């Protein structure tokens, strides 16, 4: 990599400033109610937008077939999470399902 220390320090600093932005700003500024309500939706929307492409996209192509092992394993994990609300169970069954389905399909 060209200038590795420069690159990592620059990204590190920019990332830190991004993370600090609203936390530092909000000291002197009260966010309007609509913005606070909007920010309440951040966890479910951002995380769902990370999850879904991982399950249904395969090399950038949409794959909704029942032979897509990641879609099936993800579906199983969603059911397990919904029924148990347990993080370990969700990850373990999802991973086990994927390993199994990759062998079968």
């Amino acid at each position, binding site marked *: *990599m060209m200038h590795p220390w420069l690159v990592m320090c620059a*990204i590190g600093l920019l990332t830190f400033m*991004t993370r600090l932005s609203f936390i530092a700003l909000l000291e002197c500024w009260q966010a309007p109610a609509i913005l606070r309500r909007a920010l309440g939706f951040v966890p479910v*929307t951002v995380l769902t937008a990370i999850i879904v492409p991982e399950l249904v996209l395969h090399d950038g192509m949409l794959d909704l077939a029942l032979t897509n092992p990641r879609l099936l394993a993800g579906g199983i*994990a969603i059911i397990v*999470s919904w029924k148990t609300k347990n993080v370990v169970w969700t990850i373990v069954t999802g991973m086990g399902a994927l390993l199994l389905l990759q062998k079968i399909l």
Partner: protein
Amino acid sequence: MRTSDACREFLSGVKDELPILIGVIPFGMIYGVLALGAGLSPGEAQAMSAIVFAGSAQFMTVQLAGIGAPAILTILTGFVINLRHALYSGSIAPHMRQLNLKWKTLLAYLLTDEAYAVAIIHYQRESDNANKHWYFLGAGLALWVSWQTSTAVGIFMGAKVPPGWPLDFTLPLTFIALVVPALKNRASILAAIAAGFTSVLAAGLPYKLGLLSAALVGILVGLWSEEK
């Protein structure tokens, strides 16, 4: 007792972060392996985990390094990939108003996807707890220690991760385990569905901009659904 309350919150944060680490540790190891493969020295690879402390940006940096991309392009890409942290910052900021700058700086450094996801659920449930920042510190430090350690393990292991193992799948699984229990009402379910659809439609956009637009569409749908 103030101290024991803080201590209890801290430990409870560590405890709630532990299951998430199952998904994080394989990622740290894969990052360590890839970083060496891209030509970084062990010291540089480890330093990046401490300085940048953001998995997807580190993966991208290593990939761009592997193809010899110019430094400025790598820096800009890393910045855009991490823009989603501004959303986290805004969402957690109202809970941090009373903290001093030292705490804010420390917690901002620890504000990763996985620490945020665990902390915000706790914050929304216990918004009146005066010691809830200790919970965040516990969750964040647990993640930080395992990210540094798993990076080191990856560096030492070199390329010995079995190639057939789909360890990257632990990422969506971890987030499924966090999101599904948080879908408690119609507005949050509709917001998640809208974000999921948009994330696929916008998947062609570079540098996680699809992710940002999906979040925005999801938020708008959630707000609209609350109004009705």
